[in-house]
């Protein structure tokens, strides 16, 4: 059962002129959230903006004793709500409904985990990396952004023992180009017998490329899709993804309840 918290803003850390991390006091949501789940956030009072927006749970915040106290969001401003979240002040209250959606299925050792993140698609991987670490799963993060200054929280992942493979579009850090290129190279190099689970989150084009590449090498791939969501609870049917069923038929599934994490090989990419 999701909780609607009038979450107090605890802190707002700007990361760049576009990105920030917003810490929210929401213990019940924090306690229930699994890696890959999201919250529906209502930015601003009144009717402008009107609808909530979906955000991945980025970090689960904890007190000294390890008890969950809240969550943070990794926010990239692209419009009205993300702009308000970028500017939110400590003390403000923001309605936050969650946790919602189907989380990642966390693999066990000896399966390796390869996470593929594009831009703000990094968000669900902080908690996933922690869960993988807890299970002793060997993990790699393929992480691409526009430029070096937009590759965030690298030390956090390093601290968890996650191997980092970085790319930037301008070549300012890591390999120049798209993040799926090193993924593909690594897949080609990997023995087919060694089990690997691929997790992907990022722009649609990147997801399609990651899922297609994984399928080509016969690897399972869990992708976290991004659709415009009206409700987050299965009520509006706005967030559909076109998928293949077993018999070659196509159907629309609601990514807010059947996802956001979906099997990459069943999605029909446009």
């Amino acid at each position, binding site marked *: 059962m999701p909780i609607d918290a009038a979450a107090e803003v605890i802190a707002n850390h700007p990361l760049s002129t576009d990105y920030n991390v917003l810490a929210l006091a929401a213990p019940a949501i924090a306690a229930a959230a699994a890696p890959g789940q999201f919250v529906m956030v209502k930015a601003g009072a009144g009717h402008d903006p009107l*609808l909530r927006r979906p955000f991945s749970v980025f970090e689960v915040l904890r007190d000294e004793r390890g008890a969950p106290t809240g969550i943070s969001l990794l926010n990239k401003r692209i419009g009205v709500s993300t702009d308000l979240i970028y500017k939110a002040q400590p003390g403000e209250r923001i309605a936050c409904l969650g946790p919602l959606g189907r989380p990642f299925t966390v693999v066990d050792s000896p399966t390796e985990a390869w996470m593929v993140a594009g831009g703000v698609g990094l968000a669900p991987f902080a908690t996933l990396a922690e869960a993988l670490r807890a299970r002793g799963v060997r993990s790699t993060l393929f992480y691409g952004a526009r430029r070096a200054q937009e590759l965030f929280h690298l030390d956090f992942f390093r601290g968890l023992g996650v191997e980092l493979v970085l790319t930037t579009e301008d070549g300012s850090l890591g390999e120049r180009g798209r993040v799926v290129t090193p993924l593909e190279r690594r897949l080609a190099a990997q023995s087919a017998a060694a089990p690997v689970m691929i997790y992907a989150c990022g722009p649609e084009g990147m997801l399609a490329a990651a899922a297609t590449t994984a399928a080509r090498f016969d690897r399972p791939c869990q992708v976290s899709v991004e659709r415009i969501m*009206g409700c987050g609870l299965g009520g509006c*049917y706005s967030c*559909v993804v076109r998928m293949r069923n077993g018999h070659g038929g196509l159907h629309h599934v609601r990514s807010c309840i059947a996802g956001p994490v979906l099997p990459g090989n069943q999605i029909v990419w446009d």
Partner: protein
Amino acid sequence: MDLSVRIGSLALKNPIIAASGCFGYGVEYADVVDLESLGGIAVKGLFLAEREGHPAPRIVETPAGMLNAIGLQGIGVRRFIHEKLPELRARKAIVIVNICGTTVDEYVELARILSDAEGVAALELNISCPNIKEGGITFGCSLRGTFDVVSAVRKVTGLPILPKLTPNVTDVASFARAAEEAGADAVSLVNTFLAMVIDVETRRPKISNVVGGLSGPAIRPIAVRMVYECRQAVKIPIVGMGGIANARDALEFMIAGAAAVQVGTANFVDPFIWPKLFGGIRDYMQRHQIARIADIVGTVDTRARDNEWISS
């Protein structure tokens, strides 16, 4: 305090109904709200057959509103009866089934099938969906079409029937009259306004279906006016909706003439809105010493204040 209302033969414990298409099949919300606490649940519009609807993007936010063109994705009436109705029944929900066809015969067939199902309280005839190519709104935009669908369904069912009117017409009251003459127990209004949003950067529509239906607070003043007009035109009850976001808005529709109201878009913004609505109505009744909420229906006081005058 008495919150109960009647819509013809249908007795509701309170006047707040979940609007069709905005509350799934009801079961999606069983975790969030006690379904029995609602006046009723108008489930997502059903066709005879399953439908996949339009491709994403299906919605876009607009100023104080939203545009949608879901295209009536749905599981079809038979799967609904087998997969959803039992749970709704078990949870003691008052189920209003919203039905949609492309021909009069389809509406009749749907009504027949649902009349035999256990746990259906009423039928809402969706003759006003702006998002499909045939049927639906074409009936709702023609007085004859409205009359034909309603009277044909009337012949095959004893369930209360509520044609759902479109606001995309010149004179909505005449449609309420046609529905009344054809034997409707009540009318629901309004469905969404046909509308469009263009992305100026790509010069393409923001939703895949090009046009869609506008809902939410933006449309409320128009919807209230239409309820008020229909209240003058017909004797059957009116179920009012369009942009209700709090108890004040619900009361506004009732004072304008609605015997009950539906809440759609606001449930997306706040799925925990239902107890807040009941509470707000109770507060209002207490403050104004109103014992029965049904007593405020249609009580808007429009005595002219000397309206137009010319300087001398």
